[in-house]
């Protein structure tokens, strides 16, 4: 899908071993597949079905997402930061697209 832009909020710095709060938001209709259009036809399902956050390759959170998650999916969670590195965020679309963004963090 074109025009899908994820946004993440990650602090720029942290102390080693600190727990930080991460917020993520992505614009996506999350078409559930149970809505009907004006002519009464079912609008086909198209949602983000999975969200994964890793840090330097290790998993922080892995979410199996169902159509019950609202339009413009929002996730907030906490991560441990053992060392300087990079968070990777991926959202998997039903149509096979993967939306990805990263955020670097420096450990003081």
């Amino acid at each position, binding site marked *: 899908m074109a025009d899908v832009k994820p946004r993440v909020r990650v602090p720029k710095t942290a102390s080693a071993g600190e727990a930080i709060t991460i917020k993520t938001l992505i614009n996506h209709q999350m078409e559930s597949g149970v809505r009907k259009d004006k002519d009464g036809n079912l609008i086909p399902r198209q949602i983000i079905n999975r969200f994964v956050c890793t840090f330097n390759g290790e998993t922080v959170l892995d979410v199996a997402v169902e159509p019950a998650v609202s339009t413009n999916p*929002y996730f907030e969670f906490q991560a441990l930061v053992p060392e300087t590195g990079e968070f990777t965020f991926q959202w998997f679309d039903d149509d096979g697209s993967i939306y990805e963004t990263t955020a670097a963090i420096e450990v003081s």
Partner: protein
Amino acid sequence: MTKELPIGGIAAITAIALAGLAMAEPEDDTLVVNEEIEMVTRTAAPDHLEGALPEIISGWHFRTSETRDIQRDDFDNPASLFVEQAVEVWNTVDGSASESCSSCHDDPQSLRGFWASQPKINEETGELWAAEQYVNNCRENRMGADAWGWNSQTMRNMTALIASVSRGLPMSVPTDGDYAEHWENGKEIYYTRYGQLELACSNCHEDNWGNNIRADHLSQGHINGFPTYRLKDANLVSRHNRFKGCIRDTRAEPYAIGSQEFIDLELYLASRGNGLSVEGPAVRN
């Protein structure tokens, strides 16, 4: 139009409206966005209201705490997703003149103040224009680009961006001079009962703000939060679209989006909120 007006009908409707939950006070809370934009969400009612409201209160106060929280931070506010899309469009060349919004306007911040006094009489034509018309005027006459539909996603995104840079500024529209005729027209629409349900804006928003109509906590109907991110639509909603929805819900044929009636109504409604901070894009139910 209806054939007769049984007096009991109107009384029954009002009784039903008031039979909802007991009068709920607007929540006592303060709104600071991004820990830096201090919003004035309650203030003295403008003189022209002549006491119709004891004070003016932003619609933000009438929503649940969870809804109010979403507006406190641009990150949590899904409207920001749309504002960001507008920023991209702002910087993109469009039209025969090969210009972008930024070619003339530089940064969106340069439009700070614009939204606080919408709608505004256009100096060249003398007509009262809403923000959407200013945008399309630039697009058509200066950029040589196509006009955007009043309620199109691109227009709503752009008005959200334009509103966002005026946040915290007090709403301030004139009501006299060349504005007077439009203002009087808007005022008349505000107090006119429409539709099968024979409801005027004032019946809910002036006479019953703070009460519940079924489970909806009625606000004073100010428009300082538009374009709002409505949870119901999971999208931005423009001022005119909201007016249309309200009038449609009285079971009347609404005025058209972009009509002079709605522009005049916009002026009158903005004036009722003179003094409240621009909150757009706000979060509402």
